[in-house]
């Protein structure tokens, strides 16, 4: 081993400390770089979108292409209906699946099941759209809001199932034991004691998953298709906010672009509001990625 003189050691130590400071700086820089895009996007959303928000936007259907004016009532209504329908279909399956994972999933079968749920959550939404197209739209020879809602529900289920599982597992064991001690059968324990305790967490998950599917356009492209008239008929084509943003963003008219920004501002506003409310109310660390 080489012996170090005090000076050599000192120089080495200075170099190591400089390296440490440099890398800390790089980390801070990277963090700044990561946060900046969010503010850039929000800034342009507000700057370009605020001018397009007016009463007509909410109360009028889109005009014939090329005629300035009109609104996007059809898209707002359609998004509301399809997201609502998807949540209604998805919640029972998702909560059931989550309870299954938590209650009966502490074994090899549960591991596989959990894995499958995660895999389903990772499947691209466009392929989900094509699946539902083949499953519902082609046989019926009709684009329907119902098909759109099914596609959204397929994206919704794995997210809520996993959150439900986590929330059920968070319920203290003592509650369960107390119920058993009073002679309650398992089903009653789960339905009357465990699930009610887990409800706030499950609601959080539902809200976050809801805000995720509200922004999805890919699964609706070939299922709900879009419609320039307001419609409540779920067995025909229906409009949705993300679909209309897509159409307007690629279109040639300036007022379309302005309305696309306005719709995006509304959509992102709703999504961020849900995220903030959920976070302040429940303070959960669970986040859902688009």
């Amino acid at each position, binding site marked *: 081993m080489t012996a170090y003189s005090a000076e050599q050691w000192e120089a080495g130590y200075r170099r*190591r400390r400089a390296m*440490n400071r440099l890398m*800390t700086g790089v*980390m*801070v820089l*990277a*963090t700044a770089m*990561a*946060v900046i*895009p*969010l503010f850039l*996007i929000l800034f*342009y959303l507000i700057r370009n979108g605020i001018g397009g928000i007016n009463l007509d936007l909410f109360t009028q259907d889109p005009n014939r292409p090329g005629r300035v004016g009109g609104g996007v009532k059809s898209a707002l209504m359609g998004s509301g209906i399809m997201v609502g329908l998807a949540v209604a279909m998805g919640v029972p*399956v998702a909560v*059931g*699946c989550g*309870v*299954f994972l938590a*209650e009966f999933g*502490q074994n090899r079968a549960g591991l596989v*099941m959990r*894995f*499958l749920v*995660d*895999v*389903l959550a*990772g*499947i691209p939404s*466009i*392929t989900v759209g*094509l*699946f539902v197209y*083949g*499953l519902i739209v082609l046989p019926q020879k009709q684009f329907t809001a119902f098909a759109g809602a099914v596609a959204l529900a397929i994206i919704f*289920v*794995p*997210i809520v199932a996993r*959150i439900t599982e*986590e929330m059920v*597992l968070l319920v203290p*064991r003592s509650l369960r*034991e107390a119920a058993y001690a009073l002679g309650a059968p398992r*089903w009653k324990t789960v339905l009357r004691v465990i699930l009610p305790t887990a409800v706030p967490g499950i609601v959080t998950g539902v809200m976050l998953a809801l805000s995720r599917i509200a*922004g*999805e*356009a*890919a699964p609706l492209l070939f299922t709900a298709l879009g419609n320039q008239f307001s419609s409540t008929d779920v067995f025909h084509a229906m409009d949705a906010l*993300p679909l209309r943003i897509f159409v307007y*963003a*690629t279109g040639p008219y300036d007022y379309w*672009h302005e309305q696309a*920004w306005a719709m*995006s501002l509304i959509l*992102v506003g709703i999504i961020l509001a849900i*995220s903030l409310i959920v*976070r302040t109310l429940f303070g959960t660390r*669970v*986040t859902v*990625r*688009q």
Partner: protein
Amino acid sequence: MATRDLPVNPPRTALKNRLKPGDWLFTGIVALAAAVVVIIIIGLFYELTDRAMPSIRAFGLSFIWDTTWDPPKQQFGAGAFIIGTLITAVVALFMATAVGVLVALFLVEVASPRISRPVSYLVELLAAIPSVVYGLWGVFVLGPFIRDQFGPVLVDYLGWIPIFDGTPLITGLFSAIVILSVMILPTVMAVSRDVIAAVPRSQREGILALGATRWEMIRISILPYARSGILGAAVLGLARAVGETLAVTLVIGNRAAIPGTIFDPAYTMASVIANQFAEVENDMHRAALLEVALVLLIMTFLINVAARLLIWRVTRGQRVVVLE
């Protein structure tokens, strides 16, 4: 992390005597809900394979590398789309991982909770913005910036490298890569953060006691320990980038050819489906697009499986929910 109690089964003897009919019904119902998920996954593969059959029969395996995409002549190969997908996703992944891991290290090892919690939340908010909004921003803000300011500078300095010697436009590979990097950053950051936080305390304390600086601690004991988990985070980001549809469709320029420079317009698998499926020219065109979807499905499936196995290796024992 909060401790979790696993559900206890009722005592055996009690179970035998008092298993109510309700329990069977209850078990049946939740098992059915779980079965729905399995059915959906099997259905996805079956339905897409079935509908893509004409194309699979006609073009066989060469569909994957053939780059001819000619709807009128009914000649189809997904090679150009697969290449476009891989280029955009992999390059975006490298950029997002470089930044994401540094951010994760900052949040876990450097910043105090008062800083790391809000910053962490802000980065994760990036994931809450819908794909189509990214696309809109890409077309009207990022695209013009790349065409007018950033692109020309890049060509000036790096133009001697063939792949940079192009004409920056609003849409093209480069725009898609930048958008994708931002979109998968929160995924890579959040998973890396959880993985790094899961590195045992003893790993840190051991090397600090030997006199290491913080960076040396990160380099010598944290990164090697978290390596496979960070790789998993990156691969999960890859799965997301590969399947990303609308943002990419809006900014990639949509041209069915192998790009020569990073400014050229291209196509990804997801974007060609989004762009052409509504206006298919013939049945074979539709079947070919469905086969593209099938290839995409298989690709993301395999990537997801790999990612989760890698993450599981590091966080085994701890429950980390990764929702994609």
